């Protein structure tokens, strides 16, 4: 089981990035990532600027460099895959040492590495500076349908509860010598997943009773939230706008050349 705990993502702080309303941070992230993805891989300098923007945001947020570095490891698998492209790609080939590699594959590999790294780093800045409940509040402000955000809220609340439940089962099974190594030994694990579903479902029903007991009538109440001023809008969008400008320039220059 991985240690993907929702609570460990947030790095508490009081920086301007932390205090920025979550919906603005979400918009900024989407714009930035759109710009990065649209940048042609040949515009190497543009990626340096994109990376610089994300580092700047992390610096504004006073995030410890270790946080960014450690969490970037999630993209390691994709690095491995990207490395295969020069071999699997088609088109013209160039000799590199003893190998002949696809030119397009090399560019594609570089493009994926650069884009994925910058985008993952930007996402990390968001999650490290925004507590999950605020993030959900941000989604609500962005008019994401209430059914989705309610389901997401319950999910976030109970993921760790369920993870603990499953972990206790696995410890109990391991205590009785269950160490599955082959697919046909997965039965008890699958059965415990089934039991976990039953318990989750029943908990969902009890949660509903608890909600109704406190006056719930089918609509989640509005508990208020952060409001954005023109200034926060401007500061939120400053970095993404630079990224868009860089991406546009890179595309135009690349197209002309």
């Amino acid at each position, binding site marked *: *089981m991985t240690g993907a705990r929702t609570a460990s993502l947030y790095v508490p702080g009081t920086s301007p990035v932390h205090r920025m309303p979550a919906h603005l941070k979400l918009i900024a992230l989407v714009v930035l990532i759109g710009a990065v993805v649209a940048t042609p891989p040949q515009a190497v300098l543009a990626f340096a600027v994109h990376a610089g923007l994300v580092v700047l945001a992390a610096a504004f947020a006073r995030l410890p460099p270790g946080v960014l570095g450690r969490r970037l490891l999630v993209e390691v698998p*994709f690095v491995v895959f990207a490395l295969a492209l020069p071999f699997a790609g088609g088109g013209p080939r160039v000799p590199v040492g003893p190998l002949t590699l696809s030119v397009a594959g090399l560019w*594609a590999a570089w493009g994926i590495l650069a884009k994925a790294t910058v985008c993952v780093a930007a996402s990390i800045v968001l999650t490290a500076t925004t507590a999950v409940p605020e993030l959900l509040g941000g989604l609500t402000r962005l008019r994401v349908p209430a059914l*989705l955000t309610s389901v997401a809220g319950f999910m976030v609340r109970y993921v760790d509860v369920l993870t603990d439940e499953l972990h206790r089962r696995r410890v109990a099974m391991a205590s009785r010598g269950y160490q599955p190594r082959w697919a046909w*030994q997965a039965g008890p694990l699958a059965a415990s997943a*089934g039991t976990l579903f039953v318990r*989750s479902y029943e908990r969902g029903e009890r949660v509903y009773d608890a909600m109704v007991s406190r006056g719930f009538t089918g609509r989640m109440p509005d508990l208020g939230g952060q409001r954005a001023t023109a200034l926060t809008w401007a500061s939120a969008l400053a970095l993404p706008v630079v990224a868009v400008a860089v991406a546009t320039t890179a595309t135009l220059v690349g197209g002309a050349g």
Partner: protein
Amino acid sequence: MHVPDGYLDLATSAAAGVTAVGGVGVSLRMAGRALGDRQVPVAGLAAAFVFVVQMVNFPVAAGTTGHLIGGALAAILLGPWVGVVVLTVVVVLQALLFADGGVSALGVNVVNMALIAVLVGWLVFRLVATLLRRTAAAVVIASAVASWASVVAASGGFVAEYAVGGAGQVPVRTVLTAMVGVHALIGIGEGLITASVVATVLAVRPDMVYGAKVLGVRRAVRVHTDRRAVAAFVAAGVLVTVALVVFVAPHAATDPDGLERVATDNGIAADAVGSAVAGSPLAGYGVAGVADAGVGTIAAGVVGLVAVFVLGAALLALAARRPRGPADAPAQVDAPTRSEGPAP
């Protein structure tokens, strides 16, 4: 099966985003009709369940592990529309919280893992369960077949998106073989696990299995591993995979299969979609043609494969089940693998 940022161009990502919003919007409306407000927290708990189960390392071979995607599982337990909503929430939060799947690829991931996986899983489930005369055992067998089909269909979805907007230099045929081939194998594991989970729930609370309720199956089944049925299912899966590699893509490169295995060893089997298929807008390189020629063939190929597998697996499973007769013993939760040797 999570596509990261940078694999597909912005236009394709955006188009997938629009498709996702439309599909999820329809699902929300349908789910809202199906769910009383009583069910909203239940759906939330189910989302947490899918999220947690996706993190469980299921053994594959010699200690290596794989992961559940859970689209068909959600469809069978919760129904197709609530299933789409639940998987959407899971995919969105995975991208936002864990950078698991790119933010720009959110639409693509929702289309593949929430819309295609859940809806194909549901359709195949209904089809197979109905063919098998709506018994509890049929629900379990149909769950296995539907999960396999949902995984293959989702990987096919990615190949199609790649053909439209991946614009890389890797031939679509290679991508098709690698992706669909590997996922035809992954799907076997998905099918076995999903069937075991569904069987367990069916034995304890048959009323919680939406698929069984819809089909009017109320009787609990005794859960056990029928080795012949499992063997038949695995054999059918392997045969279809081999058929794919031999007939559908005779000239394809084989490198990506190996890479996928590396991925499986690292415990990220389900994430392997993006593997060797990267692409980006490489202006100036001849990439057109790949896109246009691909889509129809891919769709036909995937649909054909799924159909062959569904029929084959159902027939084999039926044949393997026959000597045993219908299972109608009382519920017994803890014995899914009685035949597996004693625990010390």
